[in-house]
């Protein structure tokens, strides 16, 4: 039995790490950035930093693609990212509405 101690910090991913996590080619990632569906920080590709939100979307889409054996081109990937992003926004808004609403205590 091994024991490890680590600190979790919010993570930023480089373009190489992001392509690995997303299971996409660098060419696809570049196109998705050009389309504007991915918005990494940093000006040049070597400075790109993807936030954990992009990481979560990419992992979710990868899971769907792999589990359902979908072979998506950049066009379909863009749609996938946009729809997942939209679902995230709606879920967040719904959670927020629940939080801000007066709780029914009856």
């Amino acid at each position, binding site marked *: 039995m091994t*024991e490890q101690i680590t600190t979790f910090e919010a993570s930023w991913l480089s373009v190489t790490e992001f392509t690995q996590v997303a299971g996409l080619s660098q060419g696809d990632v570049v196109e998705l950035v050009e389309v504007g569906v991915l918005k990494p920080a940093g000006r040049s590709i070597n400075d790109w930093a993807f936030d954990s939100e992009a990481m979560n979307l990419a992992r979710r889409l990868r899971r769907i693609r792999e589990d359902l054996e979908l072979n998506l081109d950049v066009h379909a990937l863009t749609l996938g990212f946009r729809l997942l992003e939209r679902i995230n926004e709606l879920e967040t808004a719904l959670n927020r509405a629940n939080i801000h609403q007066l709780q029914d205590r009856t």
Partner: protein
Amino acid sequence: MKFKDYYEILGVSREATADEIKKAFKKLAHKYHPDISKDPDGEEKFKEVNEAYKTLKDPELRKAYDQLGRHNPGEQFRPPPGWEQYAQGGGFSGAHGGASGFGGGGFGAGGFEGAGFEDVDLSELFAQMGRGRAHAGRGAHQGAGQQFKAPGQDFEVTAHISLDEAAKGTMIELNLEMPEYDAQGRLHRVPQVFKARIPKGATDGQKMRLPGKGGKGFNGGPNGDLYLNIALHPHPLFRADGHDLFLDLPVTPWEAALGAEIDVPTLDGAVRMKISAGTPAGRKLRLGGRGLPKPKEGQGDLYVIVQVATPTELNDAEKALYQQLAEASTFNPRGHFVAEAHRAS
């Protein structure tokens, strides 16, 4: 090892064609996939369906599975003698290189015999065979004798922490079972205690990635990653939105009307708060810096939402006073109804 009926899970006959199996899987996958389905048990169901499909779609794995015979689902069973030879030799002629690449015997005799089977799950067995075959195939193109590298598995775990722990930071202990190979190439589940420090300022739903802390890679392949989801336990008083906290503050009708000083709980103890006279229900009062701390610096805010609570049971004296108030008051909260009715007519 417990038996699972992969055909029954997919709802196909034992004689189903590859096409029928694929169709059945797609239908069930769309129904249960956790990213698509609304079914709260979707994740569990999809896992089963996926496991069944991964095995039955591969002709060699399907053959090996069929060799296990028919048992009742959940029944403890042992593969027939010589099964692993069949799996390795006959059916898996191409797999030899890949399997032995996993360090020594691969799924060698010792690995599947006797005690080795008890702590192994049917799904792990077939997943591993599948991986071995895939890499053997790939290896063949790279030339014989080459070692097959394979990345380790990614893991995702959810850590449930309290609001106080999120505020102060905490140490969590994760008990993971990582599939690993011993020197003889046997597959084991190795319990691993993983201690992780969650720094202060973690928020609900936050995901963190620990590169290389997932399953071990094979033959120098990269390790998988460990993903940690933070989930906050609901707090009896506070609701968290990012680093901001929300608290319902019930006040009496007279406190709302006349104003009052009220002790309000915060994460660092109660503070006295002034409610001004004529405070309507639903008013949001902000206590700056009384929310959750942010990771680097600063704090979220605490929002106190005024809730006017009305007594449901009145004693005689209270009733008389409310009666008196009703007669004396000119307050009409529905004045705009009348104006609206006039406008409409």
